[in-house]
């Protein structure tokens, strides 16, 4: 049993392994934690769509080291991200910033949901209106019974 658990742990090792190498890590666990969080939001410019925290590319390693260097120098998280953004542009941010150029990106989904609710609601409401009918008025009743009587008379002859 113990061997099985051991084997499972060994098997899980590759999934736990990360691109961050021991020599990159900071001795201060708090700073290191912040560095990891920042790295997860920064895109690797070589292997795109991967964050620099999990990328093995050389540039990603350089950027990780730079993030840690800025943190040690006393930068806030925002300052570190801005430092890298100034050099690589919005593209390095895995989460696009909220600014006039990205309004369409951020608000389009909400707009589409609202349009959907509006159109869908409109269709359903108009359907319901068609199904509901009111009682015939006295005048209409008279007309109908008149027609029916005429029909009956016609059938009898």
């Amino acid at each position, binding site marked *: 049993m113990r061997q099985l658990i051991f084997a499972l742990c060994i098997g899980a090792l590759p999934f736990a392994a990360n691109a961050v190498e021991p020599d990159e890590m900071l001795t201060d666990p708090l700073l290191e934690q912040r560095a990891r969080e920042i790295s997860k939001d920064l895109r690797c410019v070589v292997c795109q769509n991967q964050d620099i925290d999990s990328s093995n590319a050389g540039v990603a390693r350089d950027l990780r080291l730079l993030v840690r260097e800025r943190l040690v120098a006393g930068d806030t998280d925002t300052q570190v991200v801005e430092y890298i953004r100034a050099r690589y542009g919005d593209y390095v941010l895995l989460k696009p910033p909220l600014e006039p150029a990205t309004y369409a990106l951020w608000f389009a989904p909400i707009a589409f949901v609202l349009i959907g609710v509006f*159109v869908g609601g409109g269709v359903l409401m108009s359907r319901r209106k068609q199904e509901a009918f009111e009682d015939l008025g006295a005048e209409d009743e008279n007309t109908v019974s008149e027609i029916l009587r005429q029909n009956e008379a016609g059938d009898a002859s």
Partner: protein
Amino acid sequence: MKRLIAGLPFIAAVIFGGFFLWGLNPDRDPNEIPSVLISQPAPAFDLDPVPGLETPGLARSDLVGNERPVVVNVFASWCVPCRAEHAVLTRFVERDGMRLFGINYKDKPEDAVKWLNDLGNPYERIGSDLSGRTGIEWGLSGVPETFIVDGDGTVLFRYVGPVVGPDAVERFTTALTQAGALPNGAGS
């Protein structure tokens, strides 16, 4: 209102079709990263020369105050496309009078010296960027990359990847000519 609703699928199809048409364009490179450096001042850097090479080092001040715009090429001996690009850049320097500066990116000095001795050295100055930090300042995503820098230190043009092949050479020549980086408007 009914007509509007009936038209919605059509409108949706047109919008999606438009996106697909845009995506099918073979000239569109989805991996292209827009550079923030264009029309911005070149980053500050000061690099030592490559040890064992007589070519002096490179700093930002070397790019400023030149008569014509100059070209900065980031290269490395371990970079295979750089080898192909080297011949193209050499031709631009020798035939067209382009001024070329180099940043030797994360390269062992002895390898760089051997590489330049084998292929020739078209660079006026070469800075050795061992740590890759200057590369980050330039927003580098890989080697080779080539920049055209104006006399006042503004980055005019960036080419990612090797300037090799008719299309790339044509694009680069156009950029050089537009920047006025070639004397007498030479270039073909």
